[in-house]
């Protein structure tokens, strides 16, 4: 058994590290490239959402590197993600890449199936090793998220373009290779130091833009065409609403322990979208409201083409945009999207935000742009 898993930017690196530390044979999914995208698009149904295509490309690449088992999450609808594993398994087998799937379903109060799937994975791992690896991965994930947030803030002010990203890459790699909680914590504080020491220019009124949308699209820079970095280089501080730490707390821990979840995002979304629609639909609406309330200058909404929950969100977000006077840019992406187009739209959007900031006229008509 050689395990691979779907990649979500840097956020899944702790998972890879955790499996390696348990002594399981792991093939880390390669960083997506044009080849990944082409393989995925060729094998997938035409109108399936982009994450499935990129995942599929990644699985084929991992297969070529010797992987034979995919470890991934599952779901029970109505978002298409819950059916990913079933379809991907069939597609891979037909295309000559037979792979086994270990699917971890969200507990929803039933922890037994989850435990039986986990047992399949870690049958030869001692409980002590398992718990230690989980602890290291958990701290590592928190560290990576923290560094990611900081890097987005620093990038908006960097004196030498590209320096933040270089330092960030370096520090993430260091964190990734740490194997004890102590070394993760040490590297975490060193990474913060390294980012603080980047030479910055003084700028007044740095615009703050919040990144919302479908979870895979906002986590994988290849999928969103480096939207965070692009905005950062334009001098915008990006706040990514993705937090796997929160996600795990809410969906795995709170659910398994049957604790009450944090419903505040749902409450914020309620006047505009009163029912859950699967995926991150309601969260996207709630995050737009929250961004407006907290004084952000704009919202960039990223979704894959044909994503059902996000289409519902996209349909009601203009109401939020008008009522709160916050500009929202919706980017709908798939394998056909090109950098130049996205760059132009982002520049236009940032121009709009900056002119609003300069004129100080918050009452001017908000603009909801869909492109």
């Amino acid at each position: 058994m050689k395990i691979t898993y779907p990649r979500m930017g840097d956020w899944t690196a702790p998972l890879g590290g955790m499996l390696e530390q348990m002594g399981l044979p792991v093939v880390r999914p390669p960083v997506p490239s044009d080849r990944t995208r082409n393989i995925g698009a060729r094998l997938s149904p035409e109108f399936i959402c982009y994450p499935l295509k990129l995942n599929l490309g990644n699985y084929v690449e991992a297969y070529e590197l010797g992987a034979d088992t995919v470890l991934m999450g599952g779901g029970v609808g109505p978002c298409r993600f819950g059916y990913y594993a079933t379809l991907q398994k069939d597609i891979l087998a037909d295309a000559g890449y037979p792979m086994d799937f270990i699917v971890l379903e969200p507990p929803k109060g039933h922890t037994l199936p989850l435990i039986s799937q986990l047992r399949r994975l870690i049958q030869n791992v001692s409980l002590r090793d398992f718990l230690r690896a989980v602890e290291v991965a958990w701290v590592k994930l928190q560290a990576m998220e923290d560094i990611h947030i900081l890097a987005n803030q620093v990038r908006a002010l960097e004196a030498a373009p590209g320096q933040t990203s270089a330092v960030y890459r370096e520090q993430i790699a260091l964190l990734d290779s740490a194997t004890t909680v102590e070394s993760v914590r040490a590297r975490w504080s060193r990474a913060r130091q390294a980012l603080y020491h980047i030479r910055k220019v003084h700028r007044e009124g740095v615009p703050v833009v919040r990144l919302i949308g479908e979870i895979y699209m906002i986590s994988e820079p290849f999928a969103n065409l480096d939207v965070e970095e692009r905005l950062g280089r334009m001098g915008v501080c990006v706040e990514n609403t993705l937090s796997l730490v929160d996600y795990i707390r809410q969906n795995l821990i709170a659910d398994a322990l049957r604790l009450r979840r944090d419903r505040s995002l749902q409450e914020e979304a309620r006047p505009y979208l009163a029912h859950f629609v699967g995926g991150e639909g309601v969260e996207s609406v709630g995050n737009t409201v929250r961004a407006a309330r907290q004084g952000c200058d704009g919202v960039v909404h990223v979704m894959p083409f044909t994503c059902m929950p996000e289409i519902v969100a996209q349909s009601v977000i203009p109401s939020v945009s008008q009522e709160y006077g916050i500009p929202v840019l919706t980017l709908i992406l798939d394998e056909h999207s090109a950098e130049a187009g996205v760059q132009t739209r982002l520049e236009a959007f940032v121009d709009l935000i900056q002119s609003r900031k300069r004129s100080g006229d918050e009452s001017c008509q908000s603009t909801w742009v869909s492109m």
Partner: protein
Amino acid sequence: MVSVGLPRALFHHEFGTLFETFFHHAGAAVEVSPHTTREILDLGVSSAVDETCLPVKIYYGHARWLSERVDAVFVPRVVSICPREYTCPKFLGLPDMIKRALRGRAICSPLVDVRRRGASLYDALVSAAFELGLDERTARGAMRSAVSRQRAMVAAMREAPKGKGPAVAVLGHRYLISDALSGMDVKQRLQALGLTVYDYHMVPESALFRIQQRVHRPAFWTYENKILAAAIWYMSQRKVDGIIQWVSFGCGPDSMVGEVVARECRQREVPHMLVTVDEHTGTAGVQTRLEAFSDMVFWRRGK
């Protein structure tokens, strides 16, 4: 008398008789929007975001058309009509989407979710009647005649077609195929070519259920489950010589289950054609494809 508008789109193609009879007997003035016209479609296309699928755009159009003419438009939130399954994420958010498009005009949107207690179709209609200010006892009484009319409608839908020619199954959402515009009279067109036409309603429920149990992992969308099970049933019973899938551009669930159906057809060597429609589709192109498909079916029969 309070007037209620029923958009002739989406669920109306399935539960229309029930809705109409119910509100009529409950004492409301019922207005059903006309069959989809270009004008209604344009209303819908101009109010929905580009990404929505054709059936939802058509729904927007009907809702807008009605909103000028009635006190309240009936837009139920149909989350689930089968245990453990969903309809489609877009239907889950439909009232919110329509509410925005109607700019403050009244909609009546009870929850239909058989996964919960007290949110069956029956409960939803009674609570809608209550919301509209209709008498609750009359409403409960109205349910009986509504249900019997609906039963008769479903029985008619189930009737197997008569005909001697080669048979094809046209599989797709009822709301897409029965619509005057997005359905393009596909069944009549195929019949005119000498084919016998089946759809998924003509498969016995018990057979659908049995097949769904066997499929490696049923999807969690009610309609797609039925479409997939119907495809398998028609092929395993050797009832049809070909399968045509009628899907709307960008349909999420169909993009997955359609792929599974296509795979099943390939394995069993049954001809399969996927027709994708959106608001730009012309009938000429579709007619040509249907003719080509029918030619092939006849040719394979004669071989």
